[in-house]
């Protein structure tokens, strides 16, 4: 087991270095990245199928407190490792085509592989300190990857700062939390902790950890980095990190702190659930009025986190399974959506919904896969989004919080509305005159996309399979046993697969109906606009105006106007305080004189040596 673990973490790390240092010959980086990612997936699968384990690499005791560097494979973390491997392969494969010919690809692939190594390290380490280090490494690579967006340099840089600012803040909280735990409880091994969240210290510690997980996953109010990143970062990275791997990490930490690192009280649970419900609603309301496809998808990446947080916050077995299932489903359909957005951007050279339209004719495969993903994210049965949301709804009621149920269901309706707008403005309607000639993206992009879309259907129609194979073992068989009853798979007339068969039969009947009506050979006629002969541009209705009515409703009008100015963003407040206190102080210290820096370093070194020796 030790050798497998070492390989799992070292393979991508070394391959990343290779990408960096090998000569810039064609396809060599792509090849290395592909092989390394596939190797990681293979090793992850092996580790996942093995029994849970605990491996001690070494131990030491600074300042009298024993520190063991243990790698512990709990069922939960092993499942996460498996999916990190899967999304790693997907991300690399998609990048081959999407990033072809872009500058700085050696860095790009290196960061991608290092992200894999850092994520696996974070998921497997039992030692909180190592966990924090790996966690921060993954943030660092995220920052670097966001900056790889060469198409809009300035926005990418701004987004990078914002990402680093928010995640850095939350990680400072995490680190502080770990230090407090170390001093208060004398251990930083996750497995041996079970801190009750009573009293101010317990609650504070929980909040520190919660902030880190919420920021990584992107829950409100620490979400603003995702929409910012969407504007600048490469689309491949949006699908790779904020939509999948960062979600895995954030949700992993949330599950850990909600189930075993802390003994959570009902009050804390309620707080987590409120964060989830607010995230769902606020983010989806913001998504509704976006005019940029990538930014709109980013707000959905935030909104979907709300469901996971809500499900896990209930603390019931079905809620946690539903939350985890939703995390996997979200990564699947969000990847399809971001890939589609990337193809549209490559072809049409814009993601502004106002300037798009009528692309279905030219990009049929992209269109079909995006429609499936859009219906899945809205939770339309029998797709995968429905299966996981359905479990989360049940958990709300089981936890006795019907208000959360209302929020979650309304969130689904709003999500649907928002995606109707996307489908209409990008693919249906009419093609605007200014759009360049568009053709279908390369098979290297559409095939993985279609495969993922089919997985979206499969995970919905045969939802029992992923739930039993991956999720129920992940949270512990005894705990999960209570879920089986409330799932009710295979009830009369409705089990996802049976209902699908029935709907297909219904469609067959519909086709007979059409045959009777000779509907399959419709006559093409010129469009009819109430008898008027109109110039083509006059007959085009962009989808961006769909929700003008909602933007102008009383109350909402003010809220939207404020959010446009960024009044609701937390970094708006933080930045002003930060600028006043820290930046000016730091400016004073960072004079740019080398000798000053060196003397500080030497002072620091002396202090460290003094502490270690004495």
């Amino acid at each position, binding site marked *: 087991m030790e050798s497998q673990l070492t390989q799992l973490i070292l393979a991508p790390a070394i391959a990343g270095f290779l990408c960096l240092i090998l000569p810039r010959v064609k396809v060599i980086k792509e090849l290395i990245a592909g092989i390394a990612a596939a190797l990681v997936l293979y090793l992850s699968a092996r580790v996942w199928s093995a029994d849970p384990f605990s491996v001690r690499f070494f131990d030491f005791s600074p300042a009298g407190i024993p520190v063991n560097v243990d790698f512990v494979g709990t069922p939960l973390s092993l499942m996460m490792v498996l999916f990190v491997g899967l999304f790693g392969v997907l991300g690399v494969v998609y990048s081959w085509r999407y990033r072809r010919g872009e500058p700085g690809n050696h860095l790009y692939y290196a960061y991608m592989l290092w992200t894999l190594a850092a994520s696996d390290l974070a998921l497997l380490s039992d030692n909180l300190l190592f966990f924090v280090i790996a966690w921060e490494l993954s943030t660092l690579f995220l920052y670097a990857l966001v900056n790889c967006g060469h198409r809009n340099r300035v926005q990418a840089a701004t987004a990078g700062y914002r990402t680093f600012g928010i995640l850095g803040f939350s990680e400072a909280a995490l680190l502080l939390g770990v230090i407090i735990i170390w001093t208060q409880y004398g251990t930083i091994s996750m497995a041996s902790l079970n801190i009750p969240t009573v009293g101010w210290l317990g609650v504070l510690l929980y909040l520190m950890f919660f902030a880190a997980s919420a920021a990584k996953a992107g829950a409100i109010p620490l979400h603003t980095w995702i929409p910012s990143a969407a504007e600048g970062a490469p689309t491949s990275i949006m699908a790779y990190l904020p939509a999948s791997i960062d979600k895995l990490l954030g949700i992993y930490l949330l599950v850990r702190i909600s189930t075993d690192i802390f003994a959570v009280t009902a009050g804390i649970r309620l707080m987590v659930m409120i964060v989830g419900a607010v995230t769902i609603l606020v983010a989806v309301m913001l998504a509704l009025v976006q005019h940029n496809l990538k930014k709109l998808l980013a707000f959905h990446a935030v909104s979907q986190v709300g469901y996971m947080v809500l499900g896990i916050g209930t603390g019931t077995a079905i809620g946690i399974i539903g939350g985890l299932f939703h995390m996997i489903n979200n990564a699947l359909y969000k990847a399809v959506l971001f890939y589609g957005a990337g193809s549209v951007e490559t072809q049409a050279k814009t993601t502004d919904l106002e300037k798009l339209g*009528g692309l*279905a*004719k030219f990009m049929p495969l992209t269109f079909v896969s995006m429609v499936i993903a859009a*219906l899945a994210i809205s939770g*339309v*049965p029998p797709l995968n989004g429905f299966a996981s949301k*359905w479990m989360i*709804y*049940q958990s709300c*009621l089981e936890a006795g919080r*019907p208000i959360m*149920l*209302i929020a979650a*269901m*309304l969130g689904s*309706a*709003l999500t*649907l*509305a928002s995606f*109707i707008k996307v*489908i*209409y403005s990008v693919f*249906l*309607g*009419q093609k605007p005159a200014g759009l360049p000639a568009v053709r279908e993206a390369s098979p290297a992009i559409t095939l993985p996309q279609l495969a993922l879309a089919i997985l979206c259907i499969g995970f919905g129609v045969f939802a029992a399979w992923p739930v039993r194979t991956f999720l129920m073992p992940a949270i512990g068989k005894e705990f999960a046993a209570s879920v089986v*009853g*409330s*799932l*009710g798979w295979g*009830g*009369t*007339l*409705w089990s996802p697969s049976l209902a699908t068969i*029935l*709907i*297909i*039969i*219904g*469609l067959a009947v*519909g086709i007979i*109906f*059409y045959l*009777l*009506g*000779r*509907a399959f050979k*419709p*006559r*093409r*006629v010129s*469009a*009819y*606009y*109430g008898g008027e002969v109109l110039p083509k541009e006059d*007959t085009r*209705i962009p*989808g961006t105006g*769909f929700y003008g*009515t909602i933007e102008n*409703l009383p109350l909402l009008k003010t809220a939207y106007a404020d959010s446009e100015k960024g009044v609701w963003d937390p970094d708006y407040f933080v930045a002003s305080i930060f600028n006043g206190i820290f930046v000016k102080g730091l400016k004073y210290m960072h004079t740019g004189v080398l000798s000053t820096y060196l003397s500080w370093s030497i002072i620091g070194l002396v202090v460290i040596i003094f502490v270690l020796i004495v």
Partner: protein
Amino acid sequence: MLVFNYLVFPGLLFATVAGLLTWWFDRKVTARVQYRVGPPWYQCFADVVKLLGKEVVLPENARRTGFLLAPITAVAASALVAAMLGVYNMNYGTGFVGDIIVFWYLLAIPSIMLILGGAASGNPLASVGSAREIKLLLSYELPFIIVLTMAILKAGTLSLGGIIEYQVGHGPILYSLSGVLGFIVALICVQAKLGLVPFDIPEAETELGGGVIYDYSGAALGAFKLSKGILFYTLPIFLITVFWGGIKIGDGWGILWAVLKYVLIIALITLIRNTNPRLRIDQAMRFFWGKLTLLAIIAFILSAIGI
């Protein structure tokens, strides 16, 4: 057996016949109110058969597959709701936890298909219709979800079978102040789900010339009509099931009583449709998210304190 349930009774065939007859009833009453003779009982069937004989035309901007697939998907989904609802009412035990959520989603599919079909036709009038339909969907879902949750909370179960059983034991949810309020809210939402006046905003014959179904003709239009017919039967039954004790098949009087409830609900729907002018979409949104949601919340609070 399941396929029979789905295709014949109480699914596709039965629901279509019952729905089209209901639609005729609605048209006949409307005609009598307006001092017209009104259509004969088989008019709605004749309409569908006639549409089958007509040619399907496809406007030049339309996306063929989506345009043709939308109507039959709507029929397939609404027939599934009808079948499930009928089977649950015949045998309470067949439900499962969370089925009411399945109903909520399935009931939205016909609307989604109308929207996609309208959008796929590439006509500006249909686009406006689609935009209105989705906004209408958003508006009525909020109060609808709240009153559904109220019923769920009262019965203490997420399964429709459980809700019927609770009503068998404790009397229908409707027979309480909160129940009455919730029922009124749900009834108005059903009116909007059916796209009847005053909520026929997406079709708006007089201004959009049919809106979402502007470009539909022949068998495709017929399929949309069928789906609307099935919903005409399904939605009142859904209301009866959730708020009014369900349909008790057990004794002979049960069926009569159920038919009475059904006719009463249809009469109310027809009454609303004949006494109101069409709203603008922003008025409808303000109505649903404002007054009606407030009413739903009041019902919810009342039920929480047990009134």
